[in-house]
């Protein structure tokens, strides 16, 4: 693997990490505000996380 490719892969992982952190953080906030909607929030969180992960993996495989 060449160095630019490695850097690209690292950037992808950083981006995905930031995204996942934001999703998780917002979900925590939402659950703290409305604990009775925990189930719905978790489902939505997992869907978004899965979509993000799909993009991250696609990019990693393109590398």
């Amino acid at each position, binding site marked *: 693997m060449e160095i630019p490719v490695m850097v690209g892969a690292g950037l992808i992982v950083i981006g995905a990490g930031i995204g996942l952190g934001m999703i998780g953080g917002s979900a925590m906030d939402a659950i703290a505000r409305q604990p009775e909607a925990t*189930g719905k929030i978790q489902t939505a969180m997992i*869907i978004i996380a*899965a979509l993000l*992960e799909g993009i991250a*993996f*696609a990019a*990693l495989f393109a590398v």
Partner: protein
Amino acid sequence: MRKENIFKILLAGLFVLVSLNLNAKEAEEETTGKIDTKTGVKEFLGHHLKDSHYFTFFSDGEKGEHYGFPLPVIIWDGGLKVFLASKFHHGEELVELDGNYYKLYHSKIYKTGAEGIIEYGENGFPTNEKPLDFSITKNVIAMITVAILMFLMFWALAKNYQKRSIPKGFSRVLEPLVIYVRDDIAKPNIGPRYKKYMSFLLTVFFFILILNLLGLTPFGINVTGNIAITLGLALVTFIIVQFSGNKHYWKHIFWMPGVPVPMKIILMPIEVLGMLTKPFALMIRLFANMMAGHVVVMSLLGLIFIFQNWIASPAFFGFTLFISLIELLVAFLQAYIFTLLSALYIGMAVEEHEDHPKDHGEDIPVI
């Protein structure tokens, strides 16, 4: 013998198999020498990720022996040809059938001349002709096993309900999972017409879940980390979504309401592309997650043999254990996500306007 005892013996057998497997790997590394350990680990990883014509439990590197059993090879090359993979002697020997020669090279069957020479193209890939391969490989064996297992499990569950309202034995484990798929995946995402799709969702959920869990056993059958299999699963979802799509679904793809005509023409190809990217994402997600998990676990195990000292080995053993536990979570999560997204896509296709009276009806204030 009591049931608990049988379980204990099975568990002990599993541990023995794990330790034997590790010993075998160690022996393999020792003979190859320290310089070749890296390539050895890489090769081992590559073999583990690929489908195989052998079902190998463990190998003895010193003697160069593989303990397992060969699987039947079924190829179509101007006629159906069936023979056992043991004829290949792990790629060392050619198989002659009706004047044609076949060679096993990197787990794939190539047609060669009598000398068995593999020719390479400019990009380094073999250019030899490949016969159509319908073999019962390791992955196929795993899938058949899972199919039989699922049939037995759910047949027992169904039988249970005929006799009593509360299931007994292992069915008690399955019941909450089935209800979970119904109440938390199918009902909220598909809506009132969920019953028709329950059989598909349950099948796909348990199929992926059991295959994922099977991949974590020492047999190391990497089925869901094979893109051909995830392609098949995603294709089924795609076909079901397209065939259950109602007129609203197609209207929203080809001639969406409430948008000016020039915009409709621009949006139409994007929507058609969106129709295709959904199953594509399903395919990539499952494949990438499972393959990445296997690569991480095997790499950490391989590091033990690369470092070969008393400090690194326990540390990497601990890491492997930790990652394996995460993989256990991922196995459930990926089965859940695949089912959930399938349900979501089906829900998008079968949704009627009356399903959400609150969104369009009385709750919106009339100005």
